[in-house]
């Protein structure tokens, strides 16, 4: 019984990790005032280029680098269109997702059915062999730890660093930030690129660790869950952790419920993260102060500096 619980918790972590990556990136992006709905597309692009690189070179770590890099490139297309050309962020983000879906299917066509050596779980002598605590704390793959470190880093960045404050300022009032002399567009480019990097890594995690193979549309809506997660967390990094584990847990529950033949339809389970997000949205909307303090006031609004 303990083993089953431990196994479930382990898989819950692996389910939460891609969400943590993508949501942490999107959180930074949205905090700067840019709404990038292309997370799903960037994850798919990261997944396919990561897998292809790993398959060609035989090196999963190189694959991970490629996943992150391709995520950045995809996000820079979005950044150029929305920040430089001032296109509508919602429409452009949706287009990026559709583009990513198509591109990844095209690139991944030849790789369907191939396998690679996944990035293995770490094994620390003694520590990982401890009962219960061992696997739970020291038995994950390196990326689980990386996602934690990045999340903590982002939390410190936003709450404790001057640049984090500047980023939030840009998202709160782009006009004011420009007036006191901050390069609003440049900062937003950086934030969008970070979002791309993290979405790419999240996608790479799926194809390099979670299920080390490529299948068309393998993100299966995780990009959208990550987007919902940012709102669910009301733009606070520490809440992303909680939300990712919760939403990851629901995913695992869904699989287990199906396997166990419980009478709960899978569709209902996959609905839960979104219902939870809507409930959270309604709850935080009741508290005007909380919205004012955390939601970036300029989210989704184009900004052009007058010269």
């Amino acid at each position, binding site marked *: 019984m303990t083993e089953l619980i431990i196994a479930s918790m382990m898989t819950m972590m692996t389910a939460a990790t891609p969400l943590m990556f993508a949501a942490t990136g999107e959180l930074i992006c949205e905090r700067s005032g840019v709404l990038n709905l292309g997370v799903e597309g960037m994850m798919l692009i990261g997944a396919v280029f990561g897998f292809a690189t790993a398959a060609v070179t035989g090196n999963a770590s190189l694959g991970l680098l490629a996943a992150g890099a391709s995520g950045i490139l995809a996000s820079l297309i979005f950044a150029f269109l929305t920040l430089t050309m001032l296109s509508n962020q919602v429409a452009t983000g949706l287009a990026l997702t559709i583009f990513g879906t198509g591109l990844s299917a095209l690139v991944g066509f030849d790789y369907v059915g191939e396998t690679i050596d996944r990035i293995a779980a770490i094994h620390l002598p003694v520590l990982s062999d401890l009962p219960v605590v061992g696997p739970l704390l020291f038995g994950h793959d390196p990326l689980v730890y990386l996602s934690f470190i990045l999340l903590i880093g982002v939390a410190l960045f936003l709450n404790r660093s*001057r640049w984090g*404050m*500047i980023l*939030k*300022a840009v998202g*709160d*009032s782009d*006009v*004011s*930030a*420009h*007036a*006191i*002399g*901050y390069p609003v567009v440049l900062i937003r480019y950086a934030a969008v690129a970070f979002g791309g990097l993290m979405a790419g890594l999240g996608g790479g995690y799926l194809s390099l660790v979670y299920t080390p193979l490529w299948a068309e549309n393998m993100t299966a809506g995780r990009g959208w869950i990550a987007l919902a997660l940012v709102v669910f967390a009301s733009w606070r990094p520490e809440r992303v952790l909680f939300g990712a584990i919760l939403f990851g847990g629901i995913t695992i529950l869904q699989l287990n419920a199906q396997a166990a033949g419980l009478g709960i339809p899978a569709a209902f389970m996959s609905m839960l993260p979104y219902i939870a997000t809507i409930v959270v949205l309604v709850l935080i909307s009741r508290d*005007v102060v909380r919205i*004012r*303090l*955390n939601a970036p*006031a300029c989210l989704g609004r184009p900004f052009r500096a*007058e*010269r």
Partner: protein
Amino acid sequence: MTEQGLLSLTGICKSFPGCLANDNIDLDVAAGEIHALLGENGAGKSTLVKIIYGVLRPDRGDVRWQGEVTRIENPAQARTLGIGMVFQHFSLFEAMTTLENIALALPPEDPEALRVRLQETASAYGLALQPDRHVYDLSMGERQRIEIVRCLLQDPQLLILDEPTSVLTPQETEILFETLHTLAQEDRAILYISHKLEEVRSLCDRATILRGGRRVDDCLPAQETARSLAEKMIGKKVQQVSRLSPIDSGSSVHLAVSGLNIHSDLAHGIDLTDISLEVRAGEVLGIAGIAGNGQIELMGALSGETGSPLAGSISILGTNANQLNPTVRRSLGAVFVPEERIGHAAVADMTLVDNSYLTGDTRLNFSRRGLIDWPAVARYTQNVVQNFDVRTTGVDALASSLSGGNLQKFIVGREILQEPSLLVVSQPTWGVDAGAAAAIHEEIQRLVSTGVAVLMISQDLDEVFLLSHRIAVISQGTLSTAKPIDEITPEDIGLLMGVRHEALPEADHATA
């Protein structure tokens, strides 16, 4: 000037698509002086100061700072040089605290050290600040104090203020002026933009006047009258608005409010308590008071934007309007000009024609066979633009493209031409230059002389005395009994502004 000029601009030109905002402007500001920059809306004042602060770049012309030709590339550089600016629309971050807002504009510094410096500077200039309050929670005066302290912490040689008093209460204005005098005594220069000419006369040492993007005159404000300054700004004689004709006491009551109680749903709103008033045909009732004493709530209650009152009644032209929405109230014969021009009275990203349709359709019926008759709306809009001297590129211009004064003329004109029986207007000339203000005053008087009842809510006492037959004061959500204009003085009003007007028996009012 014996002193070496601190800042000297020569031949500054700046054009935007479709307009030449600055045309060959020269300006000299010396250390230790308070220098006014005057001009109508759209005269190019804001453009000029944005150039000085590095937000905009001039197309041509030289900027000399302390004698050296300098290119000011961005605000950060301007601040390094010693130029600070307080914007008309504050450049603050609402979701952040006072301290964070100030830290963002300064080079990196230990927050605790900054907190100490902040408190020192704030108390040295008598500017009360609360470092840990979030900005969204603060009054306009407090927000401005943050901006000023933020500038002062950078030890500026030149401080630019763009219409600083338009959002301040009289008390806050007084504090600001004391601070500015202290700064000038410390040999800092102040460049002061304002529409309020009396204010400029008492505060400023010199004035430069802009009109249509050009510098037209320099003068010493103390030797001018408000009227002569206004004439220099506009370039023509200002019409003196004549006194109102007396009203017939037997004329019918167009607006009657009795015992009105409203619970405010704004974050820092004021509940209205037991408000009673009456406005007759051909009469202007002026409601004076300091901003934030229930004016917004009263306007909302009268226009029907906020829900029905907790108690009391509003009667428009004899019909009980408690449950009626704004459109029905309009169809009864009332029109409304709310305080906020953009986002309330007009939709920024819609054209003037669209904006005319939005409030005009009820009374003027612009539909033909169930569809909108756009040519008719355009004719109506053209009519407003011509009759009210709205300066715009055309009726298809976006509302947001008009300067504040022109948009206000448009909004007032749009309502007046609907031939109402009752006009309820809030701050009719807020942020509007002298010429446009005179035009709006004249139109209101003309309207009244045709037998329309007008309720005017205004913070501007001169305006209230100029236009009203009777004056009441709103304070802490209560309204004083309205007094005929020859029975009340500005001093009386000042006294009524601070107090709660409890409902008293009628007999006491007569002697009060």
